[in-house]
């Protein structure tokens, strides 16, 4: 058959739908052959999901015995009962997980869509995507998932519209009376979460291109963090949220009007991280857990909220301390009057004179109003912090009744701390401040009206810290360098500290980062975790950002950026498969995910995971084959993916020999796992970085860390499951050989042949052939 005829046949066989997809992804541009799943729909990657879920079974911890989602309810789902719709307790949990992942995915997708629209308005759809000299694979998630290589902002739109459509289909399935299988809901959650990485990638590429954020550079500026770093003698604008459209325009406005040194701009949450990518004069107050505390200091003259992770009671909180508030996005308008089309002077007048708050959805107008209002009201506002004497006095109101403790999600002994404060001992409250997640429940419950958050002003350290500004995508050059050591195992792993601030102790992140950077892991960070990695200093007074190089390389500590920058972490894993291993990524998700699962020793740590976005980010990593460790409270997400190492089947295909091999090796052991303590997390991290592809040298390095951290935190001994990870004697770390060898003999360990080219392809039904995993 001539090539032409073949082509014609192919084209004839294409359905209209396939044709349309090929058009959307510009299939005619042949940068790589179009893989099997361009713009995959709900069921297209289901076989892959089912294969993952066979080993990593969902573990459900229902938060409630009931379902309350329709008017047939409430339905009692205890003891194998089913709701009126037929659903059981496990499937109901899976449905809620899917809903959470959709809420997360839609948050980023809408953020991406909004930013894109804004930038296309400014620059047109043809504005080129250029991430700098060292980044050619600009959009690994988009390329892998959709098959599109985006070259312009307009191309990104095609990608995000595909996400919108899939969100709708997935949300449909959460409706009354649909999916009856927990596994299918999980497959849908995995799909939603993969899409989340597409959405995040669109958002951050657009931001980088549109706002000129740093790119193709590792040593981004060090910016200041800490509420003590904010000069409250100046007018202060506080930006809170995630969408930097407005905050960047605020910086523009200040620059254009020569006000950059006259007005302090500071931020909380991801908008803070974004703003410091745009201006290193902007400051980071801290993560979400500092929001209520900082707002209640009254230091901010103007607060600008955008979207996600902002206090929903902000108007009241702002009014209480006399701050002005501007809501800048339609996601959260607080019932405020929409002043987008009101005369600017009128707005300013009403904000300053009547102390009214407004929604202003036009960035330029919001920026101007913010600056002018801040300058106008700052001189009149008293921004006195509490003195120790005043604090002592206020603390005396506390009767140590313990009511606040009951409301505290962490059961902290707040009363004890305050009682001590009344005695002049501020230490317990200082300690508490580091543990506190800032939920505000304690103060609300206090029958004595003790202003707990104000008291914290005295306890909270005014120290300032350094955070490296987020750098966006990992460079192709870096990937080229680390590809081999990562997949062979000689770089023991990539550890990604990501996500929110619902952690047991704010200092945990910095401690873990230090431990693994020292051990020459590649440490990457995003979001709230990226901030608080900076709140610890070594003896020389250096934060981890100053202590370790900012390179994506062994021992580097890299702030990738905000939440949406998480796509660059999944992107880096994908790029290892593509750039280093030369696997085509175009519409080739299954092969890439299989590669990552079996060969890229990466592990996410979402220690303070709290939001629905954290759910979708994490679950998206899971579909790609990256395990995630969560903090203890994250059992409240209701679902984990756990294997049972002794019982489960660890068979893989050896792609070279084309035969199934029962490895018995639980690597990675879990996909979504809750660790009780940071000590346990630090034991798990090295283990979850083990991959079947490790060379003996790489494996011995990984096991070295595993054993050494086990000994450090378990008081000696050897990990109970160590033998499962030792294939041959060469895998045993030299330093531990004397201890390990006799142990292995004792338990009757037998060496095994390592697998040449481990893959799951071939172990389950899939359109993908084994050939495609060989590069």
């Amino acid at each position, binding site marked *: 058959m001539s090539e032409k005829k073949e082509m014609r046949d192919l084209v004839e066989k294409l359905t209209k739908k396939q044709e349309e997809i090929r058009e959307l992804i510009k299939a005619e541009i042949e940068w790589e052959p179009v893989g099997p799943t361009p713009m995959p729909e709900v069921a297209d990657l289901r076989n892959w999901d089912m294969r993952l879920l066979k080993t990593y079974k969902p573990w*459900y911890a229902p938060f409630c015995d*009931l379902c309350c989602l329709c008017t047939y309810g409430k339905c009692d789902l205890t003891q194998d009962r089913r709701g009126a719709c037929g659903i059981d307790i496990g499937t109901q949990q899976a449905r809620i997980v899917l809903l959470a992942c959709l809420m997360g995915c839609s948050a980023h997708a809408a953020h991406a869509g909004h930013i894109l629209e804004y930038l296309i308005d400014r620059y047109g759809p043809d504005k080129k995507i250029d991430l700098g000299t060292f980044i050619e694979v600009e959009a690994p998630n988009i390329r892998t998932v959709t098959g599109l290589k985006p070259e312009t902002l307009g191309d990104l739109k095609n990608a995000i519209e595909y996400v919108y459509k899939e969100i709708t289909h997935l949300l449909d399935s959460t409706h009354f009376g649909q999916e009856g299988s927990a596994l299918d809901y999980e497959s849908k959650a995995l799909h939603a979460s993969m899409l989340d990485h597409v959405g995040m990638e669109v958002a951050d590429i657009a931001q980088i291109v549109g706002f000129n954020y740093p790119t193709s550079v590792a040593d981004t500026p060090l910016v200041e963090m800490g509420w003590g770093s904010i000069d409250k003698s100046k007018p202060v604008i506080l930006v809170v949220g995630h969408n930097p459209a407005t905050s960047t325009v605020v910086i523009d406005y200040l620059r254009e009007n020569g006000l950059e040194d006259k007005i302090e701009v500071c931020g909380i949450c991801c908008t803070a991280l974004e703003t410091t990518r745009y201006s290193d004069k902007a400051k980071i107050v801290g993560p979400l857990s500092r929001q209520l505390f900082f707002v209640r200091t009254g230091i901010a003259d103007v607060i600008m909220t955008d979207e996600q992770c902002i206090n929903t009671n902000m108007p009241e909180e702002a009014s209480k301390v006399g701050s002005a508030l501007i809501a800048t996005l339609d996601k959260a308008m607080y019932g405020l009057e929409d002043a987008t089309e009101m005369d600017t002077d009128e707005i300013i007048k009403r904000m300053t004179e009547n102390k009214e708050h407004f929604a202003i959805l036009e960035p330029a107008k919001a920026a101007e109003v913010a600056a002018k209002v801040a300058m106008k009201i700052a001189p009149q506002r008293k921004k006195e912090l509490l003195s120790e004497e005043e604090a002592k006095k206020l603390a005396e109101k506390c009767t140590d009744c313990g009511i606040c403790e009951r409301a505290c*999600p962490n059961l902290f002994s707040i009363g004890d701390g305050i009682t001590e404060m009344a005695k002049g001992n501020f230490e317990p409250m200082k300690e508490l401040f580091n543990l506190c997640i800032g939920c505000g429940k304690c103060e609300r419950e206090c029958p004595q009206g003790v202003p707990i958050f104000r008291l914290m002003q005295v306890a909270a350290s005014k120290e300032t810290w350094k955070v490296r500004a987020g750098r966006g995508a990992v460079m192709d050059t870096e990937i080229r360098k680390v590809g081999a050591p990562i997949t062979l195992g000689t770089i023991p792993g990539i550890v990604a500290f990501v996500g929110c601030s619902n952690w047991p102790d704010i200092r945990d992140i910095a401690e873990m980062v230090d431990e693994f950077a020292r051990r020459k892991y590649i440490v990457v960070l995003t979001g709230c975790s990226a901030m608080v990695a900076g709140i610890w200093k070594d003896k020389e007074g250096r934060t981890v950002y100053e202590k370790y190089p900012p390179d994506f390389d062994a021992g580097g500590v890299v702030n990738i950026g905000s939440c949406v920058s998480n796509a660059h972490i999944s992107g880096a894993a994908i790029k290892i498969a593509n750039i280093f291993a030369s696997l085509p990524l175009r519409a080739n998700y299954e092969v890439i995910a299989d590669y990552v699962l079996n060969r890229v020793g990466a592990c996410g740590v979402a220690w303070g995971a709290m939001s629905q976005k954290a759910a979708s980010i994490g679950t998206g990593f899971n579909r790609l084959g990256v395990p995630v460790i969560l903090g203890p409270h994250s059992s409240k997400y209701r679902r984990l993916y756990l294997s*049972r190492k002794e019982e489960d089947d660890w068979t893989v295909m050896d792609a070279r020999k084309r035969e199934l091999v029962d490895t018995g090796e639980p690597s990675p052991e879990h996909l979504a796992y809750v*660790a*009780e303590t940071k000590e*346990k997390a630090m*034991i798990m991290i090295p283990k979850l970085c083990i991959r079947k592809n490790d060379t003996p040298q790489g494996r011995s390095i990984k096991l070295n860390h595993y054993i050494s951290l086990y000994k450090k935190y378990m*008081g000696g001994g050897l990990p109970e499951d160590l033998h499962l990870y030792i294939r041959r004697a060469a895998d045993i770390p030299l330093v531990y050989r004397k201890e390990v060898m006799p142990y292995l003999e004792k338990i009757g360990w037998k060496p095994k042949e390592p697998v040449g080219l481990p893959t799951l392809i071939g172990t389950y039904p899939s359109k993908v052939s084994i050939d495609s995993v060989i590069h």
Partner: protein
Amino acid sequence: MATIPLHRVNVLTGIKGATILEDPGQFTKQIAKAKRPLLVLGPRLLEWSLDGKIVLEYALDIAKAANIPICATSHLKGKLTELGVTPDSVYDVVEIVNALKDPDWKGVKGEGNHDLVIFFGIRSDLQNQCLSVLKHFAFGHLKTMTLDKYYFPHADFSLNNIRKDKDWKAFLEDLTKSLQTKS
């Protein structure tokens, strides 16, 4: 009226809340009924102390008195080793719970899955979630119990909220005694 858990996050939402046992004797009775009980000990036992003795030691007294095997979660094994105790198994709490769900699991002793699992010393929200797993997915083959000083709605048997540490201490000591007498 519902017993409101001391930890407000752990309020029962649903149908089946833990039976509150007050008296050590009631606990002893339930434990004695069990053929293969298991004690799951968590890291909070290192942080809490009663009268200068860490609560872990009270837990060990109980284990010894009733001859119950121990699963040490998190990094608890370190301290246990220090105290000269070898736990019967080391799992993190979500892992042991995962195994316990399976009626055919061999148990920490290889003698079959457990029929009573006593949780002690896990972070309150996590412990309640783990109890929920077993309440929903293991109700056919095991019961759960807690010894922490809080009410855990998802357990089968729980203490009520105890305000005073001395009452808790007395309970733990009495339980040990009661178990010793029984066995």
